[in-house]
């Protein structure tokens, strides 16, 4: 055999990673990792099934998905249309054909009713989404929907229309595994986006740059890869892209038909041309590849890795699925730096805990909890979406994670959890935050669309009423949660005694092992496990149970095991996945 000079060997190694030759060591740890990242976590039984199936077959299954993307949810109320219809109804029934305007009180009632319907619809939809995450058959699609929701952000706070927010979310669900190119073309016409980034008011006479800038900075290129002139020129290309009653409309008279230059490309560009110029520029593929790698790996990728996955994207003309497939069978996706080293976001933590415990918590609880931990679905904090990673963790959210795990386990009652009046806490509002802003804004919106608010004088009154009504709705929502208390009656029961018994765990150390495996996405170190054995032993003795008694279905074993599970889920280790 020839001896290869060292420098040549180094060069060969540097080129080598472009072709993944080694195979993934497909074991329980790898399978759990893939399920955590491509989905939302799993029980040891599901992990075992994935291992038996084999990596390729399991990945195929991830992409097969279900056929229920559209079917289970449709939007009942398109608010603007509904408003007009009802206005017409009221006028004809109350006043006949007489050409009279509704009095102020009727208008206020109507506005309130419509707003209530709108938020109810949003809640219904969010519950449906959470259920799909917890028990749906298409976890990868929901994982990607969550990704796109944080990428092409829009917030109900600004859009103030549940129908449009839902339509946008469904767009992510439909195309989330498909073509990024198509997704960008569609999002540029999406009514919620048009509203959120003000392109609905981008007219040739004085363009509005908001959408054009974020399209480059956050959606396709990344900061630093375009100039201020590019922003201004691209904004001109999107002039006249607006919406009408919740549908995209191109307004010819507001469009700037003159020549533009974006990223050095000059021509009579319109919005679609600009999107293609951006996507075909050298910076888009690496930008998207990096973001996807960070999302799935939770670690900053090397430049080589970004480049390699950017190539995969380009070769597939920006289809997303081939990149994901390549990633899921890439041994580097399973490296130590990545495995169990990502900080779980609020949804990851709550949905993941529910899945690992094989339970179905009320979606309202998951939504409330996630909001408290900093991830309020359909209300991202700003146009960049959620920062993720370490930003999820503050001293405050860390303790609340422990408390919410207790609520999920029935160890902390809703009364204890909400032992103060959350209605007085303006930062904490699961379904209708910034009530004042929302109601004031909505009243304004009503003005535009249907003259629901007749005069300035009723504004203050209406605003006050709207606020009171929002508070009532909050009270109802939280009341429902309080009423749940220990919600064992919802769905399957958590039965940790059975878990321990089925695993034939007898000694305290074995019980610790079994429950750590079930509850934690990562392997706890020996010292932590030893301490956990002490915690369990102390509680077991205090409960008057002999070692080995944890698997007996006695009045004492289940509460004890749940107390123990609560400790485990409050650990720093439980925040990783």
């Amino acid at each position, binding site marked *: 055999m020839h001896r290869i000079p060292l420098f040549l060997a180094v060069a060969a190694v540097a080129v080598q990673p472009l072709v993944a030759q080694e195979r993934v060591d497909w074991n329980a740890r790898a399978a759990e990792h893939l399920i955590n990242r491509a989905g939302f976590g799993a029980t040891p039984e599901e992990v075992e099934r994935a291992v038996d199936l084999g990596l390729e077959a399991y990945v195929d299954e991830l992409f097969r998905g279900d056929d229920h993307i559209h079917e289970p949810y449709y939007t009942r109320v398109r608010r603007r249309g509904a408003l007009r219809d009802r206005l017409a109804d009221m006028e004809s029934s109350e006043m006949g054909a007489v050409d009279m305007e509704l009095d102020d009180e009727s208008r206020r009632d109507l506005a309130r009713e419509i707003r209530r319907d709108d938020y109810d619809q949003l809640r219904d939809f969010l519950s449906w989404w959470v259920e799909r995450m917890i028990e749906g058959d298409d976890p990868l699609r929901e994982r990607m929907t969550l990704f796109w929701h944080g990428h092409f952000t829009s917030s109900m706070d600004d859009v103030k229309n549940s129908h449009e927010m839902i339509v946008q979310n469904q767009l992510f669900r439909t195309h989330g595994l498909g073509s990024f190119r198509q997704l960008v073309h569609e999002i540029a016409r999406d009514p919620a986006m048009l509203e959120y980034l*003000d392109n609905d*008011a*981008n*007219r040739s006479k*004085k*363009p*509005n*740059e*908001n959408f054009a*800038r974020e399209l480059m*900075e956050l959606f396709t290129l990344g*900061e*630093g890869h375009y100039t*201020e002139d590019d*922003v201004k020129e691209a904004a001109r290309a999107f002039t006249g892209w607006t919406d009408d009653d919740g549908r995209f409309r191109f307004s010819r008279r507001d469009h700037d038909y003159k020549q533009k230059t974006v990223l050095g490309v000059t021509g009579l560009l319109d919005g679609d041309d600009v999107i293609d110029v951006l996507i075909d520029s050298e910076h888009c593929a690496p930008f998207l590849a990096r973001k996807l790698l960070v999302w799935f790996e939770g670690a900053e990728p090397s430049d080589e890795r970004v480049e390699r996955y950017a190539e995969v994207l380009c070769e597939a003309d920006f289809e997303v699925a081939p990149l994901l497939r390549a990633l899921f069978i890439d041994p580097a996706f399973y490296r130590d*730096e990545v495995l169990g*080293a990502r*900080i779980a976001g609020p949804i990851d933590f709550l949905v993941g805990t529910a899945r690992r415990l094989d339970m179905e918590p009320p979606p309202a609880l998951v939504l409330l909890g996630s909001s*408290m931990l*900093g991830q309020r679905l359909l209300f991202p*904090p*700003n*146009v*960049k979406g959620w920062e993720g990673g*370490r930003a999820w*963790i*503050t*001293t*405050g959210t*860390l*303790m*609340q994670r*422990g*408390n919410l795990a*207790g609520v999920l386990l029935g160890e*902390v009652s809703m009364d*204890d*959890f909400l032992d*103060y009046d*959350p209605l007085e*806490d*303006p*930062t*904490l509002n699961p379904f209708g935050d910034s009530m*004042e802003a929302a109601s004031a804004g909505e009243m*304004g919106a009503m003005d535009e669309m249907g003259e629901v608010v007749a005069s300035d004088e009723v504004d203050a009154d209406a605003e006050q009423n709207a606020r009171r009504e929002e508070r009532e709705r909050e009270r109802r929502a939280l009341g429902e949660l309080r009423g749940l208390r220990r919600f064992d009656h919802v769905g399957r029961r958590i039965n940790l005694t059975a878990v321990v018994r089925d695993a034939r765990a007898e000694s305290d150390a074995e019980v610790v092992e079994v429950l750590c495996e079930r509850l934690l996405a990562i392997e706890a*170190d*020996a*010292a*932590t496990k030893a*301490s*956990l054995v*002490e*915690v369990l032993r102390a509680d077991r003795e205090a409960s008057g149970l002999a070692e080995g008694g944890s698997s007996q279905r006695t009045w004492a074993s289940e509460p004890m095991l749940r107390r123990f599970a*609560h*400790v485990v889920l*409050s650990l*720093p*280790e439980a*925040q990783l996945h």
Partner: protein
Amino acid sequence: MTLPSRAFDRRAFLARAGALSGLSVLPSFGGAPCGARDDDRALVLIQLSGGNDGLSMVVPYGDDVYHAARKSTRWKADDVLKLDEYRGLNPALGRLRERYDNGGLAIVEGAGYPQPNRSHFKSLEIWHTADAGGRNAGDGWIGKLCAAEFGNDVAPNRVVHVGSNMPYSVQSTAHPAAAFTAPAGYRWIKNADSLAELDRNATGRDGALAFLREMTRDARASSAALRSAVLRYRTEADYPDDAFGENLRAAAALVNGGLGTRVISVELGGFDTHNAQRDRHQDLMETLDGGLTTFLDDLQRSEVGRRAIVVVFSEFGRRVAENGSGGTDHGCAGPMFVAGGRVAGGVYGAHPSLVELDEGDLVFTTDFRRVYAEAIRGCFACAPERVLGGTYASLGFLA
């Protein structure tokens, strides 16, 4: 024998602090628990997120160019609260105007930095790190400040963010901030003792787990004191019934409570006014006016509060010309407010020209780091150069 490492020091300290706070430390105005000193001076940072339109906050009503450029968002001479022949405050800033008249509000004109960035996120990073490199330059400026001022002496209540969205300015590996949204929930309802025991025995691990363990310790060490300071706080100050007012009330509880809190961060969002700016911005000004002035009054109740310095800033101002939707797009320089018992009121720095623009935007006249430097001099012992990497002359707002 080796010297104890920094991590060791930190851990030992936090264990002590945790043990102490477990014994129910009730803050009182007389006493000074947990390392607080009578001469503590607190710095309060209020971030107006989204890019505050400075021209609508401190209105150059005396400038014809302003009126020509701002057809739909402008405030006329009769509307503004006149400060002089050229500038007036937004009509919703009535109570801040009173402050100004009484000499307690400094207005810093034209705050910004060279080579301005019009991205919210990049520009915020620059404000948060006081460095053109943003996050690539390391910790936030408050983290750097704590490292310079306190070295290895760690105190979990020292830097606190009230609200969600903790800014990068207070993120630090050595001196991380505590943060809460709802003070009542700032605790483990169960298992606090077990978790402390587990932590004592945990062995080290790198990366994310090490970070999580540090945060767990900080949570334990700060939980009792912060929680009770805010929940037990009673004040006659009548805060507005909104999130900003509520957060400022908690901030006042921390300052007046003598916890040794030296930096507090609070956010008011919603300033990205690309459309319908006039009304939206005025509402925000009203929120700022009500919350901030109540807060400033409330700080008069304690010696620490009277010495506090409050700095109001935003990531950028907005373009001089309006867009077509009654709003304005991202711009550059804008005014800052500085307030507090030791602040000499008045206008500092020159108003940027409305004619000589950089790509349609105001050119900064005052490097914002001059404000940081002076605030550091006013509240801390360390040299501002150690935090800001350069020398920035004081504006002179500190009497």
